């Protein structure tokens, strides 16, 4: 039983119990996109590997074989100390990233929600700015 709440107003949902299955057809483009994405991403991963295997010399070292991710060694004691500032930055990033995520549907539906919507988003942004200012003033953005 699936329903998309995003494109239907709440009120109109009542009484649509009958055509649950037919709704799925609407998701077909997404499925297609998913397939294409899978194919493309697989191509981007495996194509360079294949090409390099075929063209370059194969001379592995320990460092070469290590996974490279986020600046950390992949395997070590989980109780090691690291700088909390990574997380601070990450959290700040998430907050402002989400802000951007809110902006997309707002921008799309701005016609519908009018000035009220516009003012509301401005207030939302203002609140974020206050938070940003607070973080800045307290030095959360300074690495040192």
């Amino acid at each position, binding site marked *: 039983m699936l329903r998309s*709440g995003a494109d239907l107003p*709440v009120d109109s949902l009542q009484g649509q119990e009958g055509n649950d299955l037919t709704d799925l057809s609407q998701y077909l483009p997404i499925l297609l996109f998913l397939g294409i994405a899978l194919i493309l991403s697989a191509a981007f991963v495996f194509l360079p590997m294949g090409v390099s295997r075929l063209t370059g010399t194969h001379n592995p070292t320990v460092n070469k074989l290590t996974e490279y991710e986020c600046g950390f060694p992949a395997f070590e004691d989980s109780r090691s100390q690291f700088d909390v500032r990574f997380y601070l930055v990450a959290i700040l990033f998430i907050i402002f990233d989400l802000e951007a995520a809110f902006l997309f549907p707002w921008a799309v539906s701005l016609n519908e929600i009018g000035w*009220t919507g516009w003012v509301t988003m401005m207030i939302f942004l203002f*609140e974020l700015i206050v938070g940003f*200012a*607070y973080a800045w*003033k307290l030095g959360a953005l300074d690495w040192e």
Partner: protein
Amino acid sequence: MSVGNSLYLVAPEIILSASGLLLLLIGAWGGFKSARLVSILAVTALFASSAVALEFLLNPAFAEGGDAFFGQYRLDKFGSLTKLLIYISAIVSIIIAPRFFDNVAGGRSAVMRPEYPVLIVFAAIGMGMMVSAVDLMTLYIGLELNSLAAYVLASFLRNDERSAEAGLKYFVLGGLASGILLFGMSLLYGFTGTTNFNAINQAFESGLSTGALFGLIFVLAGMAFKISAVPFHMWTPDVYEGAPTPVTTFFATAPKVAALALTMRLAIEAFGSQIAAWQQIIIFIALASIVVGAAGAIGQTNIKRLLAYSSINNVGFILIGLAAANQAGASAMLVYLMIYVAMTLGSFVAVLDLRDADGNQVEEISSLAGLSKSRPGLAAAIAIFMFSLAGIPPLFGFWGKFLVFEAAVQADLILLAALGIAASVIGAFYYLKVIKVMYFDESADVVVKSDSKSHAVIIALCALFVSPLGYLLIPVLGNIADQAAAALFWAL
């Protein structure tokens, strides 16, 4: 309904939001020095919001209340009354804080920070939204706004191990509970097609599908975490013990009120047509909370931990009123909540007033020995709170218990009432133990005199409220609680 009108109905939250943002900036630029100013302004803002809430509560023009933001938020007497309780708790929590933080042992962060009142204000906004929420969305946003502020508050003494541990535990378990709640909400939405309480209720009238039942249980489980009802109570003793005492004071009062009010609103307004689905679970949770709260408290040596179990125990009694699932029960819960807030505020402020000669907080119960001689007034106040928490007449705590039991009996839950009364005997043991230590044990000479007038005033007011004089307020409180409870049942 116009947006302007909606904004008017959420005036308390707007006042708090605007001042919260402003205070945050003041705090950021003013530094530690501005803590006092920020505290004063925060208390002022909370008073202003309280005034608005009181106006909404008492002015006949708002007797009917009203929906705001397209049925996401409702102003009614129920919300206004609980908001008042929340704001009062928040005000007390701010007033008692500076003295505590300025004297914290160790001295590394031994100073009141301006963020404290700001966080309390943000939590208060969240709780205000919780008690007024009539939509799962509003509910969740309010709950999280409160929770996020609370997590930070719990670990406010971040250099103190216990405080940090409390914050972490609260955060992780809170996240788990939040997930459960959210999952339940998505199930409810999935199976009813709406997030609005009334609409959910209407959808339930035609029957309850398994998925919706799951959703209902999950949502209630999430709420049970917030009210620290058994078996979702495990965090409570650790967090209450570890968190700074003013924060514990806050946790034990305002979020309890908010979460209980929200649970009531959910149970009655959203799930009111399927009482049978949740009544037995609430009965179990209530009894389990009473018993576990009482049994757990018996072995405790730390008074904050003891009060944590005491709050679990009291939540059990309050839930008996919910199990009754009628208007009398809701009214009884509200009266109980009012008394509970007074008792708890009083007890924690009294605990806060216990300091040894070096200025350290005294939290061991055994250190209270001989308090009746060294601090007779404080000992008497604690004795009053303990007797009242135990529900021993003629103190006011008895009245709350009496009302919930009466409601249970009216709802034909005689066995529940009988078991509750029997279990309250267990609870009396540890409350009386504290009194016994204070009055009859060999003096430990640990606690020294305190010169805090604000503490004395708060303790005296709370003690006066729960003393037999409180019974004079029964007509007023009963009337308000009845009206507020009636507001819950209008929708049905």
